[in-house]
């Protein structure tokens, strides 16, 4: 059985390959672009000399490359996605690339594990503190959210539409905030850095963290569980901190940093003002805050992982230990004097 991993050089890619190899995958193909950073991937592969790992340099937004990548594979862990950039580029590299991947299968039977995101949930109108599980409705107004949410939502729909017409076993995995050494220190859920000042926007909201190795395990667990076909799984660890607690721990363990807490009512007011200003000025400043976006990101939800646990997943690294490792790594990256 040949397993393909796209996005293998990405943040989750290395640990995912490690997790797959550790759990007995012997025939692996990974998409690793020339020029991409491959250290984590190479390290994972070198620890498992018993496995046959084929690295291919493929641009998935080119149909021929995508077809070459999926040729002969039985299982696809589809991690490749564009996280930033212009909306059209993100869409091309995520949704269109996915379409080419599916086209490359030519209707052949396969199992696809799609790594999606919490951002697909329509949480703007949920009450504060509401529990989000896999049955929570999807975002109904993607154009009111950021391009990433729109792109991931459209990507999920693409796979579901394809699965409805072809012999495709689709497993959708929706991780929360993936963190760990090599990742970025702050999700926007915690806050944003504006002109050198950190705005703490998350406050007492629960930060839905998943440590990168736990997340990789979760993707593999869902990918390998027979009963997961056609199912969706949230990925979030246990014993989660609040956004404030995470920020304080960062300041203590990585570096001191000036931050200003912005209470939600203030943010809501600011968002209304910025949305109006954006409309009046025809987009002179970007509408990074709108009431809808703010409610979606900072409204404060809790996320449920019980469905994932039902397929046997448990977080290997406790949150406290995950944060300790992450902050230790971040501290190493911080130049002296900061």
């Amino acid at each position, binding site marked *: 059985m040949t397993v393909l991993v796209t996005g293998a050089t990405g943040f989750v890619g290395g640990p995912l390959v490690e997790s797959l190899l550790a759990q007995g995958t012997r025939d692996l193909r990974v998409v690793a*672009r*020339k*020029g991409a950073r491959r250290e984590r991937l190479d390290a994972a592969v070198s620890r498992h000399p018993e496995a046959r790992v084929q690295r291919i340099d493929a*641009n998935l937004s*080119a149909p021929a490359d995508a077809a070459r990548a999926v040729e002969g594979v039985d299982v696809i862990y589809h991690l490749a996605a564009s996280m930033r*950039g*212009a*909306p*059209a*580029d993100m*869409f*091309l590299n995520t*949704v*269109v690339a996915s*379409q080419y991947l599916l086209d490359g299968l030519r209707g052949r039977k396969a199992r696809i594990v799609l790594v999606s995101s919490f951002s697909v949930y329509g949480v703007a109108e949920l009450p504060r503190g509401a529990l989000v599980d896999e049955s929570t409705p999807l975002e109904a107004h*993607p*154009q009111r959210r950021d*391009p990433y949410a*729109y792109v991931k939502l*459209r990507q999920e729909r*693409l796979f579901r539409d394809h699965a409805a017409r072809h012999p495709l076993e689709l497993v959708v995995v929706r991780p929360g905030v993936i963190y760990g050494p090599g990742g970025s220190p702050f999700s926007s859920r915690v806050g944003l850095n504006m002109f050198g000042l950190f705005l703490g926007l998350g406050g007492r909201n629960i930060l839905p963290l998943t440590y990168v190795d736990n997340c990789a395990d979760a993707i593999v667990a869902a990918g390998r569980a027979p009963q997961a076909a056609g199912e969706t799984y949230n990925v979030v660890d246990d014993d989660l901190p609040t956004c404030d607690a995470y920020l304080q721990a960062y300041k203590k363990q990585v570096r001191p940093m000036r931050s200003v807490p912005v209470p939600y009512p203030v943010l809501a007011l600011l968002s209304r003002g910025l949305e109006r200003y954006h409309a*009046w*000025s*025809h*987009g*002179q400043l970007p509408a990074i805050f709108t009431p809808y976006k703010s409610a979606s990101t900072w409204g404060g939800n809790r996320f449920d992982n019980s469905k994932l646990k039902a397929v046997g997943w448990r977080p290997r690294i406790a949150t406290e230990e995950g944060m300790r490792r992450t902050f230790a790594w971040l501290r190493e990256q911080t130049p002296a004097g900061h």
Partner: protein
Amino acid sequence: MSQKAPLKVALVGCGKIADGHVEEIRKMPARAEVAAVCDRELLMAEQMATRYSIPAYYDSYERMLETERPDVVHITTPPQSHVPLTRAALDAGCHVYVEKPFTLSYADSKALIEHAEKAGKKLTIGYTFMFDPPALEMRRLLAEGAIGDVVRVESWFGYGLGGQFGAAIMADPAHWVHALPGKLFHNNIDHLFNKLTEFIDDEEPRIRADAWCRRQQRFGDRRDDMHDELRITVLGKRTSAYGTFTAHVKPTAHFVRVYGEKNIMHVDYTTRTVTLEPGATLPSAIGRLVPAFGQALQFLREGRRNAAAFARGDFHFFSGLNRLIAMFYDCISADAPLPISTRDILRISLWMDRVFAQISPEKSR
């Protein structure tokens, strides 16, 4: 502007720059409305239509032209497809806005402009910086005689290979930029030349180009053939110029310096400031002391002007694009002269040919 119905606009090529076009067109609802978008990849057309609530989208250009019968077509595809798409739009009775670079060669550009003239339709090209606020201010000062007769011009265009577009080019040997005759320069040096045409009247000035590759990273494929530094000199009969394209100098600057018989003008497209060299008009040490204050006052004045524009909500990134589109639509509605003459489009196309003929990929290795 006349009270006619808004022009019906269609756009082909739903990549990144298309967003800018649609956003600017939507700011002028009395002049035009975007009726449909097209991309050979239907999903790309769909995302554009979804994000901007555009009523129709297509993956067949012919079908879009036939069904929608637009007045104007904006072509925002990679340059390799500009000739066939423009011809088809002209044949369908549309006026056409083509993104730069116009075509791949002077011969193609010439044939395309003749085609438009034969069809009796208007053409323009995305030389938006010609209509950016600093360019307008520069022309006002020139008309006032602020620097006297122009002797030389310097045109500088900095580029960041680490930016979104640069990163996309570097990540993909199959990127269309690598297939252009002038590669990275082909997609950018219109912006060096379109600032010179108003100063150099010659049809074919003497052009000398030197290009090289400074970056160290090597891929072992066609990406290695791409130069990233370029120096051009343009010798006209009355005025001469030199241009720089650089992918390494930081900050990534974008300016024109106009050297006159009376003064030197610095036109900065990044900071949107236009300033004159102060020059020493007073004797001895005083003459060296005062100019810095004069310069500071000029920047203060420019900053104040920009702040006023910002307060009015008139300080947008795509100012020049907006103005060019508006002028183009007005020239269609009122049958007025084109915002950019076809002669200038052709001259730039010819000058670009001359540059690319002088630089060889071997030098970049």
